[in-house]
């Protein structure tokens, strides 16, 4: 296997893992299968488009701000009021949020898809171990890998991370111990906003365009990865997303050209099968003792 292929595969895997974590985090904490996640990504991409002629740190900063604001607003206006609702109601509500954010985008700047001219440094190639690797792929890998490491650190090492995980597992008990729900849940949405912004930056770099419905594909990837990896287990979800990305890269080189168009059918049939055979996810090692 050549180095550039390996970088591309691991990079896409990391990107998909990031998308999956964004979906799985809120599912774990609130039981919310968030179909509006794609719109948070779209909001960040929207900022990238608006500020494409500013220096890139400004564009990146604005992408972060837009995504976090949309994430927090969706919590405040919709999900906050549905905290005790069952997961299906939440899922329908997230559909509504998704449509609302999309319509706002359509009403303002994005009735049609818009191009975002790629930064010149992205199209360059570097010589790495004798192979020519595109800077874009390398940056994808670096950014997504970095974000994943940061999430792992945040959740694993910090007080906030422990509280988030505790709230994810047993919300009631966490509240009894003094974990402040009204602080922890918005924090989770902020984390999701940041993750969405990072994935969005990478996505815009890769596809060079922005549109109101661009969030659909990444959101579906996040959902599939989370279902396959085990929805209430973040490590499993990340691994599920990673394998999905790696498998996609592999499929695209291995599958005959006339079957590539049916990739989504393969993926979602897998989802259905996983739900039937192993509803707790393929990769979640359910080794928890009950009594």
């Amino acid at each position, binding site marked *: 296997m050549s180095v550039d292929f390996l970088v591309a595969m691991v990079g896409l895997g990391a990107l998909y893992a990031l998308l999956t974590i964004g979906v799985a985090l809120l599912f774990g904490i609130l039981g919310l299968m968030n179909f509006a996640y794609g719109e948070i990504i779209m909001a960040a991409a929207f900022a990238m488009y608006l500020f494409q002629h500013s220096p890139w740190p400004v564009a990146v900063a604005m992408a972060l701000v837009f995504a976090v604001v949309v994430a927090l607003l969706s919590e405040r206006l919709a999900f906050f009021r549905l905290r005790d609702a069952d997961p299906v109601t939440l899922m329908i509500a997230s559909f509504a949020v998704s449509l609302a954010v999309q319509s706002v985008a359509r009403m303002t700047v994005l009735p049609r898809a818009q191009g975002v001219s790629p930064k010149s440094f992205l199209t360059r190639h570097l010589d790495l171990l004798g192979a020519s690797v595109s800077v874009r792929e390398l940056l994808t890998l670096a950014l997504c890998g970095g974000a994943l490491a940061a999430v792992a650190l945040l959740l694993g090492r910090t007080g906030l991370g*422990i509280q988030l995980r*505790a709230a994810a597992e*047993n919300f009631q008990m*966490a509240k*009894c*111990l003094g*974990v402040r729900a009204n602080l922890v849940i918005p924090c989770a949405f902020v984390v999701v906003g940041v993750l969405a912004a990072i994935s969005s930056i990478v996505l815009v770099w890769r596809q060079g365009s922005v549109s109101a419905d661009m969030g659909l594909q990444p959101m579906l990837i996040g959902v599939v990865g989370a279902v396959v990896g085990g929805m209430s287990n973040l490590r499993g979800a990340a691994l599920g997303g990673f394998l999905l990305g790696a498998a996609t890269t592999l499929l695209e080189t291995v599958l005959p050209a006339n079957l590539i168009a049916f990739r989504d059918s393969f993926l979602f049939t897998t989802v259905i099968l996983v739900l039937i055979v192993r509803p707790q996810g393929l990769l979640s090692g359910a080794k*928890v003792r009950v*009594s």
Partner: protein
Amino acid sequence: MLLDIDNAYIQYGPSVMAVQGASLQVAEGELVSLIGQNGAGKSTLLKAVMGVVPLHSGAITFDGSPTDARSFSTVRQRISYVPEDRGIFTKLTVGENLRLGGVTRRDKKALAADIERELERFPVLRKYWGKTAGLLSGGEQQQLAIARALLLRPRLLLLDEPTLGLAPIIVDLIFDVVVRLREEGMTILLVEQNAVRALEVSDRTYVVQAPGRVLGCGSAAELGKLPAVVDYLGFSPSDVRGNSHVR
């Protein structure tokens, strides 16, 4: 009175009034237990104190302030609760579970000392410090739950069936800890299926009958004089060697 439950009615689920007119008091430094059959409404009473289930009517006051007031916070009032299912975070490590017990405390040094003290009290927790809590046995999880509850430095400790389903040797250990805490001056409200053991260790015992009605209260000897209680329990509490630790 530290805790005062006055004529409480508590609805459980959509249509069941699980507690109908319960009244009970716990004074500072007391070990009070609630005994009675399954479904008598004992656990529901603890949940109502914690605000986990809402009070339908009546009043619950802690240290003079009503617990259903908006501004009331069980954490700020330092009420600790060990639920029947122990409420352990099974995916977190033992250490992380313990740290969550003091999550609201700002005095980090004192908290570290308190954690050290609980590890002395429950050596098994030190042994499994970095292990995922879900892998502990039931008895070990119960010890973790109690240790975690103590890290709030509670003024009132609510224990819901701490010995349910545990091996006899662990049951002894848990009761030892409860008695020791009582001696240290802790105020404890204990819900217990094992009526005999509860009567043995408690200052006062409330006998509760479904739906949440108090049949009688007092020491083992006092309860023995109430025919309704003897009839309900099927034995006379005065036969139990009560309050052994007090004297």
